[in-house]
């Protein structure tokens, strides 16, 4: 196929022009891949954060009740489900923590350590102390690192938790760092201590459930809702707003990606038109030698398409480098859900972006190639 030979030689004969065209597409590919990776990374982080730091399923009190009294029986019923890995009755609430002159609002979680640890792997995030100590130390607490810092709380210090007119004095028996915003507000207490603080008796506010398959959560929640009158909610339902928001955002993002590609497409078309203008005479000569209009069109479309794969590869490489760099930047956990932003790059994304880049190259080449194939050979040969 002589068209291929000519197209190839034209490309190699214009290294600088080709470099800029390849760069423009490569940058588009890289930017899109990084943006897609960031969105996907955010989603993954959000899911893993949700899944790691909160129960896969939460069973709330019945509609007209504030607390669950029969939590032991309920726990047993829930544990009967084969997909359920762990169950932990929890009493949660908001109180004020006071140490010396420092006061901070906190979210406390009262639970049985051996059950709560199975639910949320609390022990893994402990940076000092042992979460299981809370089983035997009634008035002790595990405190989030940032909260401890804000309160200027040292290891083993006593501080107060105050709720309306009730207060308990607890000892900081451990510090925990989850790497999320929770570290600023979290306090783990033994269940009995939390119940004391609340003063509502032997009750919990929810039962947390951990599952073997996180994506089975909605089904099991439905089962539990049918089985008991308690309200079971899957993690998907709890994060529904934010997941939906991500989906909506995704639509805008796709439009944005499309625009980026269109811009780079114009860049390619511009380069192709320049190449063709410079080669008008040559096109005339090829026609005089018997090249059909179809062949001329093929040559210039090929020239445009040939640039696709190297652009995509270079773009992919740039995206990988950018992903690494972005991954090393530390971000405050108030800004992002984790300490580091994740750019989730996968081959599938790369394949789609590459395919799209090829289509853009093809589309950008069509008009210039059509123009070239429609040149009048006499005028083309006479052109300077």
């Amino acid at each position, binding site marked *: 196929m*002589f068209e291929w030979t000519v197209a190839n030689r034209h490309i190699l004969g214009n290294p600088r022009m080709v470099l800029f065209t390849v760069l423009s597409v490569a940058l588009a590919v890289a930017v899109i891949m990084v943006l897609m990776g960031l969105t996907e990374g955010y989603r993954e982080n959000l899911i893993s954060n949700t899944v790691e730091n909160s129960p896969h399923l939460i069973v709330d009190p019945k509609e007209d009740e504030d607390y669950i009294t029969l939590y032991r029986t309920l726990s047993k019923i829930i544990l009967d489900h084969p997909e359920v890995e762990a169950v932990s009755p929890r009493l949660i609430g908001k109180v004020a923590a006071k140490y010396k002159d420092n006061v901070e609002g906190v979210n406390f979680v009262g639970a049985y350590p051996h059950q709560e640890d199975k639910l949320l792997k609390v022990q893994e995030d402990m940076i000092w102390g042992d979460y299981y100590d809370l089983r035997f130390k009634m008035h002790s607490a595990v405190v989030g690192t940032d909260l401890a810092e804000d309160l200027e709380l040292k290891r083993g210090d006593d501080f107060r938790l105050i709720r309306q007119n009730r207060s308990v004095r607890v000892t900081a028996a451990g510090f925990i760092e989850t790497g999320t915003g929770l570290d600023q507000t979290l306090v783990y207490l033994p269940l009995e201590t939390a119940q004391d603080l609340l003063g509502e008796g032997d009750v919990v506010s929810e039962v947390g459930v951990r599952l073997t398959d996180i994506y089975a959560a909605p089904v099991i929640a439905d089962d539990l809702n049918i089985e008991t009158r308690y309200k079971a909610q899957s993690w998907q339902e709890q994060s529904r707003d934010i997941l939906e928001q991500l989906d909506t955002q995704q639509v805008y993002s796709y439009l944005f990606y499309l625009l980026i590609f269109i811009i780079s497409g114009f860049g390619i078309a511009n380069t192709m038109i320049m190449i063709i203008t410079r080669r008008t005479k040559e096109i005339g000569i*090829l026609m005089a030698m018997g090249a059909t209009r179809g062949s001329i069109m093929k040559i210039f479309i090929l020239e445009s398409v040939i640039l696709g794969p190297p652009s995509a590869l270079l773009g992919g490489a740039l995206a990988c480098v950018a992903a690494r760099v972005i991954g090393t930047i530390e971000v405050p956990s108030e800004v992002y859900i984790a300490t580091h932003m994740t750019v989730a790059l996968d081959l599938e994304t790369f394949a789609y972006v590459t395919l799209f880049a090829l289509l853009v190259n093809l589309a950008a080449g069509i008009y210039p190639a059509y123009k070239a194939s429609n040149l009048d050979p006499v005028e083309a040969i006479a052109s300077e």
Partner: protein
Amino acid sequence: MSNIIEIKNLRKIYEDGVEVVALDGMDLIIEEGEFLAIVGPSGSGKSTLLNMIGLLDTPTSGEIWLKEKNITKIDPKERARLRNRELGFVFQYHHLLPEFSAVENVMMPLLIAGVDKKEARERSITFLEEMGLGDRLGNRPTQLSGGQNQRVAVARALANHPSIVIGDELTGNLDSKSSDMVYDLLRELNREMNQTFILVTHDMKMAEKTDRILRLVDGRIVCEMLREGDGFVTRDLCELEEDHT
């Protein structure tokens, strides 16, 4: 000898604001194996006629017959095929493809014709060797002299064994030594292969080396001269003078 080209009442009018009659009802018969020169002042219609015969342009009216086939209104694909198989072009400036070596340039019409790459290369090398360019096969146009490039262009025009070779001022850009060389080459090919050569020139010295000279003025043939021995005889009364572009 059979007619290879027959032109009947050919007219070409360019209408780009002002109407310009480039060919004004021309009749012409060219026989197979002729070595023909077309002369005339600029704007006389030489190049237009050449473009018509070369199937690069279409007439406003009239007919062109190639090998007893009316090709005036054939479709673009067939025109392209005929240009490739029946016609070879040599232009004033060699018009070689700059990114391709001498041998690759000669190969191009063969590749367009669908000849296998290896065979095309072998045939092209043979041509270039015959042109005395056997040691310049891999050189690009920028690495060759004007005369050498024009010889490559001639080789390219001949590569597909066309029945007609068309030259538009093909020696116009060469020094006299180089142009003599190119001319002698064409003459030899004409004798050996019985190919038809139609050359447009305004250089009478060159024209006088051919067998038949047509002089065009304002889109008409005003004078025709035929070789007889070492000289020419005119059919009509006409004056031949050096034309200046």
